[in-house]
């Protein structure tokens, strides 16, 4: 498969990149790992006139801590997330999730920024970012802004990101540290997109749930923050009855399409199963 023709740009700095985007406008697309965009270009579902390759922007790579947050550069690859001791210690749900994305070759290239900014509801990291209450730092030539992950997603391939902006980093609040966590993903085979998946962050205090955040992957046009499901376990011992109520709440907002992954009923059912399993595992880890 041969993509439509395009002009290729490989800027050396963030300033150069933002200048290019300001100048080229909607005719340009940035490419990070390329494993979402390039297949779309081969199918000619995406036909950018200009491709701006971010691979030389070292300042967009790496993981660092600030007093109240972990900051992950947008160009940090899934492979690097998996290998990060810092994340394994302080935010292990990211490693658990990255290991369930695609396959080793794709994870060497695929980036956290691409995964969260592409707007594909099948991507796994967005729901995790909703559960973590992460925020995204977006830059354009004349400024920058911070957008909460929970406010970022608008529809299929539609996000708050403007055509002259790029996502430069992801900020994860340190309140996530020490919480119980789980990302449960049902898929047909290794490397597949989720039939349905659930991310859970859970804080237990004296056997009672002090906070809970639940989000769903691939059962709607965007990742879904399941606020009611989280509230259902808040203040409980995350016992069977509370978990069942959370499952009911999650299924109530699930709105999947019927496709090769299954019927609407099946995928809605699986979304609930994933919430149940993720809550149980997060609870074990929270104690």
């Amino acid at each position: 498969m041969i993509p439509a023709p395009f002009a290729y740009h490989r800027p050396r700095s963030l300033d150069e990149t933002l200048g290019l985007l300001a100048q080229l406008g909607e005719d340009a697309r940035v490419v990070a790992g390329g494993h979402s965009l390039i297949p779309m270009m081969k199918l000619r579902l995406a036909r950018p006139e200009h491709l701006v390759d971010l691979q030389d922007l070292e300042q967009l790579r790496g993981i660092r801590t600030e007093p109240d947050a972990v900051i992950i550069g947008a160009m940090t690859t899934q492979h690097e997330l998996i290998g990060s001791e810092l994340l394994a210690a302080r935010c292990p749900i990211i490693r658990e999730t990255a290991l369930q994305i695609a396959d080793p070759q794709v994870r060497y290239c695929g980036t956290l920024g691409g995964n969260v900014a592409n707007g594909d509801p099948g991507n796994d990291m967005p729901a995790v970012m909703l559960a973590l209450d992460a925020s995204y730092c977006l830059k354009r030539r004349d400024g920058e802004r911070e957008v909460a992950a929970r406010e970022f997603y608008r529809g299929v391939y539609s996000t708050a990101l403007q055509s002259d902006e790029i996502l430069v980093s992801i900020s994860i609040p340190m309140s996530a540290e020490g919480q119980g966590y789980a990302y449960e993903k049902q898929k047909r085979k290794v490397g597949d997109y989720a039939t349905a998946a659930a991310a859970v962050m859970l804080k237990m205090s004296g056997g009672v749930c002090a906070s809970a955040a639940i989000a769903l992957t691939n059962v709607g046009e965007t990742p879904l923050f399941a606020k009611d499901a989280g509230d259902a376990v808040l203040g409980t011992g995350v016992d069977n009855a509370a978990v069942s109520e959370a499952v009911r709440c999650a299924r109530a907002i699930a709105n999947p399409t019927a496709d090769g992954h299954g019927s609407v009923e099946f995928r809605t059912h699986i979304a609930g199963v994933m919430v149940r399993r993720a809550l149980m595992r997060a609870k074990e880890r929270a104690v």
Partner: protein
Amino acid sequence: MAKMHLELRVNKKEVEALAEPRLLLIHLLREQLGITGPHIGCDTSHCGACTVDMNGKSVKSCTVFAVQAQGADIITIEGLVDGDGSLHPLQEAFREHHGLQCGFCTPGMITRAYRLLQENPNPSETEIRHGIAGNLCRCTGYLTIVRAIRAAAERMNGAGEAAE
């Protein structure tokens, strides 16, 4: 679209090429450079038959543009053979353990296994299976491939110890 001038290193040799930006790396390798070891299987980043090693990472060369490989260091199955023509321990082990039948997936499979063993010289069976999850084989059922990679790891570790 105007062609771009590329300089990269393929199998330890400096090469130059002219490529349209939309040319995929697999087409540069196969059609311009005559390196036909990496295969085009699915052309949709699933099967791994086009796997090459690029800057120390296994990549599916059907999902990388040649222009993105500007300045890159690439190793294909052709580059694993020793200078004197003798096979790489992985190639020997695939032959001994019947790690192939039709052979179509083999160049990608071995090139991926090469990087896996660079990162993890002594992988368990489970680690091997996860490590080659991006390479599909429709003949073997993987059993003999896993055995071959395991055997190659043992041989390479043994050779390392003998050299010390």
